[in-house]
Each structure stands twice: as C-alpha cells, then as structure tokens.
C-alpha cells in the first residue's frame, strides 16, 4: 500500500458521508486507538482505523468491498475512546448507509430511499397504491358494527370470492399487494448481496476457480452466521452501547414470532381456507397463534422503543447526528407495531371507522418496511449476515490457499 498509491478522492462521496452522520470523519488523526478498543476487531484485519482514512480520502470502491464496515455493530467503544471526537462508529454507520444504496437494485429506488427529502414519496407510493386497490376492490366503506365484529378486517378489500372461488377477495388483494412486494425485495436483496460478495471476493483476491458449492456456502458460512446473529454474540461483546441488545433481541424475536403467525395465517386462510369454510374471521384470542401474535406485537413495540430511547441517548451523550437512515427504520417499525396493535384493540372496542384507518396505515407501514428493506437500514439483516458469512469464507481454505 505504501508504494506509489495514487489517491483519487471522490468528493461527493465524502460530502455524502458527512451528511449521513459521518460529519466527524475529517477529525481522525489515525492514532489507531479505535482498532484496539473495538471488541469486534480482529488481530489480522483490525478496523476501523483504516476505514477512517479511506473515508477521508473518499475511496468509496474500497469501502464498498470492505467486509469490516458491515461487521461493525456500532458498539460505540471506538467513539467513546476516540481522542479526537471523530466518532468512527458513526462514520462506519454512514458508510453502511452508502453501501446499501451502492448495491441497491434498482438504483433509482435505492437512491430514493437514501434521503429524507424523499420521505413524502416513500410514504405516498404505498398510500396511493394500497388506497387505489382498496378503492378498486369496492371494500372502501365502513362496515356495520355487527359485520365488523364477525368478519374483522376480512371484508377490508370487499366480500366474496375471486379466481373461480379459489380465494376470498380480501386475501387475493392482500396477496396481490404483498407477494410481489416481498418477492421483489427478496430478489433485490439477492442481487445486492451477490454484488457485494463478488466485490469483497475481489478485494481479498479470492481464487475464483475454487469456490464453495451452494451447499458448502449455506452450511459452512451462512447458517453459522445466522445462528450467531440470533444469539446476539457480537452485540454482547459490545461495551459502550451494550444495552442495545435489550431492544434488539426482543425485536428480532418479535419478527420471528410474527413471521410464524403470518405463515400460519397464510396457510390456514389461503390454502386450508380453500377447502374449509369459516376460517376467514379473526383468530380467537385464546388461540396459541393469537397469543404469539400479541406477545410479538408487544415485544416489537417495547424492543423498538428501547432502541428509540437508546438512539436518542447516544445522540445526546456522544453527540451523534440524527440521520434519516437510523430514524426511518425505527419510525417504520414503530409504526408497524402501533398500527397493528392499534387496529386490533380498536376492533375489540368495536369502532369500525377508526379500526379501518389503522388497518390501512398498518398495511402501508408493512409495505414500507419490507418493500424498501434492501435500501434502508433494515438491509443490515441481509448484508451483515452475508458479511459475517464472508468473514468465515475469508478465514476458510477457499481464500487462504489463494494467497
């Protein structure tokens, strides 16, 4: 690195970092305290000292292919011990925000999700889309209290069956909105994660002739990383911001719980419901699945609430800048939790008009959470897991032998 490296700084990239919470990047004087106090930094490949100078120099390509940026959990120890107030933790957060946009597919959508200026659009698109389908479905009117009590939100997108009686109209509309949205987000994530993996492989000079099979990739690299993520092992090694685990863990468990509930509902209502009548009303409160759903909803609100408080504290105590990147995710998850639980409670109180409005906003916020997932902070779910898999790959025979 020392001999004859020509630095071609990308000034716009540096400007972007400064706007995305990395405003302190230029204060770094390369003392390397951060790399030593970081509980996640390894001996052979310490960070974030070198990432800081790459960021100062505007070397965005190098940073985009740097696994360490994603291994960082923003524990905050580096920021606490930094002698210059350069806040390496915040700078790496800003680089991650950049990376998600960089790898985002399609680019236009990714760029739209990277700036708070576009928030009206980000909110408006699902509001209009779902609103329009709601209008077209013919279900856009407040039901009577009696029908609402019996059917719940089952008539939100109208009554009756479609596709030759295959699905209820309501389920069909929900599937029509969300299945393509989920599929698209999954495809975009796959594309982004693949691009990142390839970039990282190039940056460590991995031997492209000798690559892991899909099975090896999953069993040796991906699954252990997912297990490690669920156990919050690295989070627990954090020093300064360690209490974020208290928010993140319930949140992750809530997502898993709600994933199970959604799949149950999908199977029961959309598949079994095809053969058996009467499965389309609300699930009874005593049903174990309903209990799981309610516990998960509360865990979600509590978890994201803790993270919310934590982020506010960090901004106050460490002087971190509030960023769209951080607050969009916290805000949307909070919205999903509040509108979901709110819709349920108002349904139980028997006020259809309010309940319908909450349900509509619930659908909008879920759409925002998942459709924009590959480009917002929520993308860490994909990219960090893949990066942790890459870290295992980097340490494995596939890369070491190539050197």
């Amino acid at each position, binding site marked *: *690195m*020392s001999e004859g490296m020509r630095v071609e700084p990308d000034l716009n990239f540096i400007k972007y970092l400064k706007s995305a919470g990395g405003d302190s990047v230029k204060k770094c*004087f*390369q*003392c*390397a*305290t*951060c*790399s*030593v*106090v970081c509980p996640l*930094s*390894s*001996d*052979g*490949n*310490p960070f974030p*000292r*070198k990432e800081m100078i790459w960021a100062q120099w505007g070397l965005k390509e190098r940073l985009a292919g740097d696994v360490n940026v994603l291994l960082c959990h923003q524990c905050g120890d580096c920021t606490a*011990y*930094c*002698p*210059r*107030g350069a806040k390496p933790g915040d700078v790496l957060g800003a680089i991650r925000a950049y990376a998600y946009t960089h790898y985002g597919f399609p680019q236009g959508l990714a760029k739209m999700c990277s700036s708070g200026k576009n928030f009206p659009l980000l909110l408006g698109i699902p509001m209009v889309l779902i609103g329009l389908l709601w209008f077209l479905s013919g279900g856009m009117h407040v039901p009577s209290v009696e029908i609402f009590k019996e059917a719940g939100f089952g008539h939100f997108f109208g009554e009756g069956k479609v596709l030759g009686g295959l699905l209820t109209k309501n389920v069909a509309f929900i599937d029509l909105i969300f299945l393509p949205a989920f599929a698209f987000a999954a495809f975009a994530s796959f594309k982004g994660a693949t691009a990142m993996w390839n970039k990282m492989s190039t940056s460590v000079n991995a031997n492209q002739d000798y690559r892991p099979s899909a099975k090896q990739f999953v069993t040796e690299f991906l699954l252990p990383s997912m297990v490690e993520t669920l156990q919050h092992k690295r989070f627990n090694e954090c020093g300064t911001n360690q209490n974020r685990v208290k928010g993140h863990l319930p949140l992750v468990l809530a997502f898993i719980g709600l994933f199970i509930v959604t799949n149950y509902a999908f199977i029961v209502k959309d598949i079994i419901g095809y053969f058996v009548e009467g499965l389309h009303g609300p699930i009874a409160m005593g049903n174990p699945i309903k209990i799981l759903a309610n516990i998960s909803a509360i865990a979600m609100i509590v978890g994201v609430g803790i993270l919310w408080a934590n982020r506010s504290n960090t901004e106050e105590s460490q002087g971190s800048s509030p960023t769209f990147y951080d607050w969009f995710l916290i805000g949307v998850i909070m919205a999903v939790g509040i509108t979901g639980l709110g819709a349920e409670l108002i349904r139980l109180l028997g006020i259809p008009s309010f309940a319908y409005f909450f349900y509509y906003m619930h659908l909008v916020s879920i759409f925002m959470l998942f459709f924009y997932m590959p480009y917002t902070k929520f993308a860490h779910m994909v990219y960090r897991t893949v990066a942790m898999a890459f870290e295992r790959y980097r340490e494995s025979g596939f890369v070491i032998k190539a050197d």
Partner: protein
Amino acid sequence: MTDERSASGAGGVLVVGGGISGLTTALEAAEVGKDVFLIEKNPYMGGRVAQLNQYFPKLCPPSCGLEINFKRVKNNRKIRMYTMTEVQSVSGSAGMYQVTLETRPRGVNNNCTGCNACVEVCPQERDNDFNFGMDKSKAIYKAHEMAFPMKYVIDAQACDKCGKCVEACRYNAIELDMAAKTMTVDVSSIVWATGWNPYDPTKMENLKYGSSQAIITNMMMERLAAPGGPTDGRILRPGDNKEPESFAFVQCAGSRDENHLEYCSYICCMATLKQITYIRERYPEARVTVFYIDLRSPGKYEKFREKLMADDKVTFIKGKVADIIAEDDGGVTVVAENAVTGEKVHAKVDLAVLATGMEPAGQAAAAKVGVDMDSNGFIISDAGKGMFAAGCAKKAADVVTSTQNSTAAALKAIQASR
C-alpha cells in the same frame, strides 16, 4: 501574623512557584533591582526539574543549572524565599496587590545542619512522594539529595510526635509544635510559575495503570534512573526489582486526547527518546519499542531523534497503545494497531512506560484568586492586571522554553510594576 511588606510603592514582584521557571523569573527580576517574594509549595526548591535524572538533549544532570540558580538566590538580598508557602488570597489591583500567604509548619528550623541524626531515630515511615511512592522515607526526612534549602522536614500526617528526633538533634532544630504562619505582602505584580503535574495515569482506564507494577510513568522512570532515586539509578521493575529485558514506551498517554488533555504536552517524545538513552546505557541488550502517533522532536531535537531511530535495538511503531494486559510473570502485553502494516501488535514487555503529559498544576490556586485561565487550565497573562504566567503554567514546554518565557515574564512584571 507578621507583616513583611516591601517598601510602599517600591513595586515588588511575587513569584508563585520555585521551580526552574520561578527561580529564573525571580532572579531576572531581582538582579535588576526589584524586590521579589519567591514562594514554593514544596519543602524544597527546584520543582519538577529536581526530580529529573538528566535534561535533554545534552543529557546533563539537573544539578547543572539548578545549583547555579540556588547560589544566585542565596547571594541575592532582593529575593525573599519561602518554602511550604501558598497564596491564600489576593486583594487590590495592578501596582498595589496585597497578597496573603500561608506557610505550613516545617517542624524544623534554621538550626538544621542536615546531619541526619533525626532520621536515624525516627520510627515512622511515609510514602516518598518525591520518588512517586516507589520507596519510603522516615516521617522526618530530607526531601532529596540536593534539597535547597538544606533543611529537613516533618510530614505532619506521618509524625506521631514521639519526640525521639528532638532528643537526637544536637542543634535544637526540631520544633514539633511549630505553627502555620500567615503574612501579607504588598506587590505590584504577580508571576504564576506554578508548573505542572504528571497527568493522573489512572484516568486512562484502558491503559490499566495500577493493574501491574510493570506499568510506570515517564516521571517514575526519571526517578528510577536518577542516582538519588529509589533504586540508586539502576532501572529495576518496581515490586520485584527485576532487571527488565524489554521496554515499551506508550506515547500520548493522555495527551492530544479530548477525553484527557486535549493539547500536545510537547516534552513526552523527547523525554522518551532521552529515557531510551538511560536504558541503552544500563542494558545494552534490552529491546525497546516506542508506540506513537507522531514523533515530535522540533528544531534541534531532530538530530537526537535521528540518532535513536538509527539504533537497531529500538523499534518505532506508528499506532497508539489502547490496551495493556497484566501478565502472570510480572510483565505486561501492550496492544496497538500498527497503522503502517494494518495489523494489531501484541508486544509482551517487562516494563511499560506511559509517556504521560503535563497538566497545569496551578489551576486550583489560580481559580481561588480569580486568575484567568484558558480552557485547559493554563494561566493567561494580563499586563493590565499585572498578572503573568511563566514556564509550564503558561503552556506545556521544555526547560529551555520555560526559562525563556520566564525571563520574558520577569521583564513584563518589571514593566508592570513601574
């Protein structure tokens, strides 16, 4: 209460602090005919310089320089010198300050000849602060080998007034019931030469000072290397007296750090380079590693640095030590990232020296009487008020710079008192 007022309107100067800066200021002012009150908090003059083994870059002992100044002070009737004395309050304004001074009881009067008979019979011990607690002295003690004034002193906290020293003293020099004294002096201007303290190493939690005896500060290193120090100049590891085979120097320990001292303490790089010469002299085979952010050896000190950087026993690693781990064998492992290779370094050494910086020592005294300080606690000179800072009370500096700005402070004090 005694009144020791200089003749009204004579425009005396009060110099607070009797280290190299205070001595210089006092002498420069007195030798052009000003009346000077020179007060020192410690029982001896000479301040931090008296604790050094050698000056850089010429590597001469501090007796060179201090002794000449002591002689000049002794011979100059214009200087009235008080040890164990601090400022209590200041009233008045530029040109006519009334300053109340308080002198703690020394317990030993001017009859003392320094014969040491008292020490031989004293049953009580105290941690010797002159050697940073690395050895003990008796409750009655001589501050150090070349203490000036050459008078013993009693540590009031350690003394149980058993009276054995009084019996042993043939000169009636010991007064166990000596009382504190206050006096008021009239002066035209005040020079603060309150010096510096080594930054408290326990404040850097990650450097774990106190977790191992193998972690010392650079000022402790000076005492270990000094002929009158706790090990008579052999550099031995505190605790087990091992002759260290490897050393690590931890630069910027607390300096250039917003969480500690935000400024560069100026002397620590040169102090480390100097201390490497102590090591090379005593242990020619010892391995020395210096961990630094930048090496700052300004001006003529560059040559000194170049010579040591050419030494193949000494390794310089760019990267700040941010963790020190105590090891079972009594040594420590220092951890840093080598910013040139991009890899972490775990260096196991027998002795780690924290190059701690300078914290201005006069902050409490200055705050008490309302003297202006900058955000780091350095005193700001104000000619209009007749208040001046000299030496390290003004800024972190080496001895040469301190004596230069002390001479300047003396001139300003003279001008302000006309």
